[in-house]
């Protein structure tokens, strides 16, 4: 725990929100992608990606503090532990002239709802802003501490 611990926590949050944003961008870009991966001789559409976020506690200092029974351990911020595929069913659209249409003329499109992605995007943007505000507040506290005894 140094004076910059708050910085490091906010930094991990910023990285996490950036990654969320990247995932949203990837989903948005692949709304119409019908050839995501090749499984058993046929093309599967792109599957919507989601991030799994968990507190970043897997550090030696965290385990040591826990083993010593201390309750004042803050952890080391947040991290994305994995990116998973959304398992909900694909959208079916009737488009007989599409190159990836099946025998009945239906095309399977990715399970992405642009509206959901917009909400995720706004959430990630606002969280990023909130964490920048936290970071600036931490910095201002440190600068205020340097003013002790001045004047």
């Amino acid at each position, binding site marked *: *725990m140094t*004076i*910059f611990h708050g*910085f490091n926590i*906010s*930094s991990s949050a*910023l*990285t996490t929100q*950036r990654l969320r944003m990247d995932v949203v961008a990837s989903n948005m870009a692949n709304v119409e992608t019908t050839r995501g991966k090749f499984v058993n001789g046929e093309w599967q559409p792109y599957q919507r990606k989601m991030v799994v976020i968990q507190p970043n506690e897997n550090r030696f200092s965290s385990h040591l503090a826990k083993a010593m029974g201390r309750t*004042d*351990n*803050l952890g080391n911020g947040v991290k994305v532990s994995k990116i998973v595929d959304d398992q909900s069913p694909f959208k079916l659209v009737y488009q007989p002239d599409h190159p990836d249409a099946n025998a009945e003329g239906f095309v399977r499109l990715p399970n992405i709802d642009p509206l959901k992605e917009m909400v995720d995007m706004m959430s990630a943007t606002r969280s990023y802003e909130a964490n*920048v505000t936290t*970071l600036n507040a931490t*910095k201002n506290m*440190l*600068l205020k501490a*340097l003013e002790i*005894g001045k004047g």
Partner: protein
Amino acid sequence: MERVSYKPNSVMNNIIGNQPIKKLTPAEAQTSFKVALNDALRQVNDAQHASTIATEKLARGEKIDLHNVMITAQKASITLQATVEVRNKVVEAYQEIMRMQV
């Protein structure tokens, strides 16, 4: 994290009772001050160096997040300011002593 107690008694005991102030010879005091200043300056140097490396990485287009570059720069700036503050205090104390009438 160090546990902070807000009870005035325990704080006073810690300062006055449990840890008697060690008598330092002038030579010892100077050495410990020299070591402390050296450490602080090295930390400033490290922070500035880390900031330079992060900026260079960004400029070269390597894989680094923009906010991490900014945060490293801020860390360097705060470390430098803290050291300058300490230096100002030391110079102030020195000048105070030099102004003393003998």
